[in-house]
């Protein structure tokens, strides 16, 4: 069974490329560019893991994370922050909001896949 991964990133091209590569690695991937209706996507798609960008125009990654972790139905879904923001502050903030992993762009597909598997196996 293909594991479902939701990518929320305003960089549509990046999301599509990741989707392509993850699909090659046997994942079922859906991409979204606006995090505001994240709960709807989850309802529709029921992802097992979410790759979340931080810097987005309409709602940033931390707020999306907040929505997810504050909702009892979604709070158990592991979230990997996949972002270009590498500051310690950001990392610490994300960790404080119970994200599973913090991964910096750019990232090799190989490394990303191993991270995803790592997180999924931890469940």
């Amino acid at each position, binding site marked *: 069974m293909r594991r479902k991964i939701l990518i929320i990133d305003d960089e549509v*091209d990046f999301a599509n490329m990741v989707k392509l590569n993850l699909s090659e690695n046997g994942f079922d991937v859906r991409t979204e560019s606006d995090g505001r209706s994240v709960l709807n996507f989850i309802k529709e798609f029921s992802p097992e893991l979410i790759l979340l960008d931080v810097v987005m125009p309409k709602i940033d990654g931390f707020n999306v994370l907040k929505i997810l972790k504050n909702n009892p139905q979604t709070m158990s879904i592991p979230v990997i922050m996949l972002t270009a923001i*590498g500051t310690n502050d950001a990392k610490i903030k994300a960790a404080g909001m119970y994200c599973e992993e913090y991964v910096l762009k750019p990232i090799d597909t190989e490394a990303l896949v191993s991270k995803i598997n790592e997180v999924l196996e931890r469940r």
Partner: protein
Amino acid sequence: MNSIYNFLNPHLDIIYAVYAVAFIMLGTVIISIPRKESEFKFAKSLGLLIGFCFSHGLHELVEMFLIVKGPIFLLQAADIIIITVAFIYLFEFGRMLLNINKIIIGAWMPFLMEAAVITLVFSTNFLRAHIWPRYFFALPGGIMSGIGSILSYLADKEKLDKLRLKNYFISLGFLFCFYGLLSGLVVEKDSFPPASIINTESFFNLFNVPSAVVRCIWAVIITLLMYRIMSRLSGQIQDKKQKMLVGLKKAYSYLDAIVCGISDSLLVVSLEGKIIKANKTSVKILEYENEKELINKDISGLFPGKLSLGEAGLEVITKRGGLNNYETAFSSKKGRLIPVLLSIAVLKLEDNKENIEAGQKAANKDNIAGFVYVAKEITELKRVEARLKLAYSELNQIFNANISAMRVVDRNGYVLRINDAFAKLAGVGKEKVIGKKCRDVWPEERCGSDACVLAKILSGAKKEAFSLEVYGENRQKNTYHTVAVPYVDAEGNLIGMLEEISDVTSLVRAEEKLQKAYQELKGAQAGLIQAEKMAVVGELASGVAHEVKNPLAIILQGIDYLNKKVSSQDANIILTLDCMNNAVHRADGIIKGLLDFSSSTELDAKENNINDTINTALLLTSHMFVKKRLNVIKSLQDNIPLVEIDANKMEQVFINLFLNSVEAMPENGTLTVRTYTCKAAQADIKSVVSDNFEPKEELLVIEISDSGEGIPEEFLNRIFDPFFTTRRGTGGTGMGLAVVLNLIKMHNGHIEIGNKHKIEGKGAKARIFLRLKNKKENN
């Protein structure tokens, strides 16, 4: 004949009276003319003639009296004496005339005559005794007078001719002769010859005229003649007097003009100290209206107070015979002080009887008549002198106040003058230097050589300037700047040189300091520029990083996808994708470095043991050391003091430095890490930043050295520049050391990176200096 006698005989008294009057008149006439002034020699003898005239006149009066009153014995006796005296006068007159005219008859003759007369008078009838004076005196006297008159005429012929007196003199000569014969031979009848033959009776018998009458007529004629001569002579004398007077007046007016005209003040002062005469200059200088105001003023009133003549009172001046150029002052009428140069001459009168006779008696034995004061006004002189003094004083003050040492040297190299600064510089007394040779006072290398400054100035150089370095007693180098210029007199003649020596040691030192400060400033500026550059880079990096990372991420994902999908048989495609993959990672590394650099803005400093931090960093990089089989030698000081550091950031510092060393070393290389504390002064800090540390401040030093090739000299200045790297192709971003420098600066520390000393072998060496200000002993 008898009738004449009858007429004359009762009137003999009248005849005698006329006779007497004639002689007395003659005497008076002669007295009336000034004989002294006469230029004629015979005038000297006229006094005797006067004596004869008056005495003979007296005799005639007595004769007349005897006729009128009858014979009186005493009168007759007196008459004999009178007539004798009268004829002696005549005799002497004649003798003197002859003497004057160089026919010398000695004084023995009258004495002889007198002796004869006296003998004969007393040996014969006394009352008839006037025969003898007539024979012995009247006869020779009259003839000598006659001859003398003619000789006198001949002696002064030219002058007397001019006065048309020739005939008078010759007539006078004959008249005197005849008078001598008449008076000397025609005597009272007596019993002995010649009186028995030639006598008044025989005369009367012969001429029928009493001899007395003839003598009377003769006397009148002589008187008239004499009167004529005397009046002519007198006129001549008057002319002469007139001329003298004119000459005198002229001389006086000359003198007056000179006295009035001279520019000096001239005062003639009487013995009593009263002003007798004052010239125009005196009136002007003393500010009086005219000379009259000054006349009769007391001279001492012209001198203010004791200023007068000082000790030299008039008595002293008199003793010294005058006063020369005595500096004093007049007090003018308006009370102003007028400085003058006073000379006083003592006015002495000629010491002769005539002056005394003339009533110009000197009041004292020195015949001093007064004083002549000659005063030269020196107000202007004084003013000029004062101005000169002021100018000199002013120049002298400027000369001495000058901080530069100055001296004036004459043509021969002798010091004429030095100022205070020079005395101080040369360490000599100001007065002792004067007259010494210039080289003895302030010797220079050039002294005695061709380069001698004085020689150059004397040969026409307008200015000579040079610097001189002198090592003082405390081995300190002093620098002097010397400028020499020609010293010229008022006419512009070169008479020496003026030398100015400035101690420019402090200037030179200041310049050196300035140079150093400038270098420091330049360094600081470079540092500021560096900091600014870094700030800009940081800002730029943080802004750009995110925007660049996303595209990089897309490219990387794309490469990954292509790697999977593209046939792996085509080696070129695989190579291409590999290169692209590397490029993306490199770009990512640069951005990462930039972000690191920009993120290092805040410190989370806590007290830490630096050795722990180093160990952590070594642990984190250990895989690299293992991979390259490198040795690590740790020489970490035990009980090292704790320092306030941000451990994470210091870790990053060490990691960056270790990575650089790893990259620089070949396999089997050695990395050495040392930590120790020492005083800043002993830390051998090269950079100018060393000034930031107190020499006594305790520092913590971390020393990291490798055994690589070391850093090429030309790169040493640039190693801290962001993006400077020599490993661009192998993943170097050029941000490593920039980040290190930034972090060390944030820790208020200092880092120096260079090559190891030659004796330590090849390789680079980094030294980090951290402050131990808030140190605590690590127990």
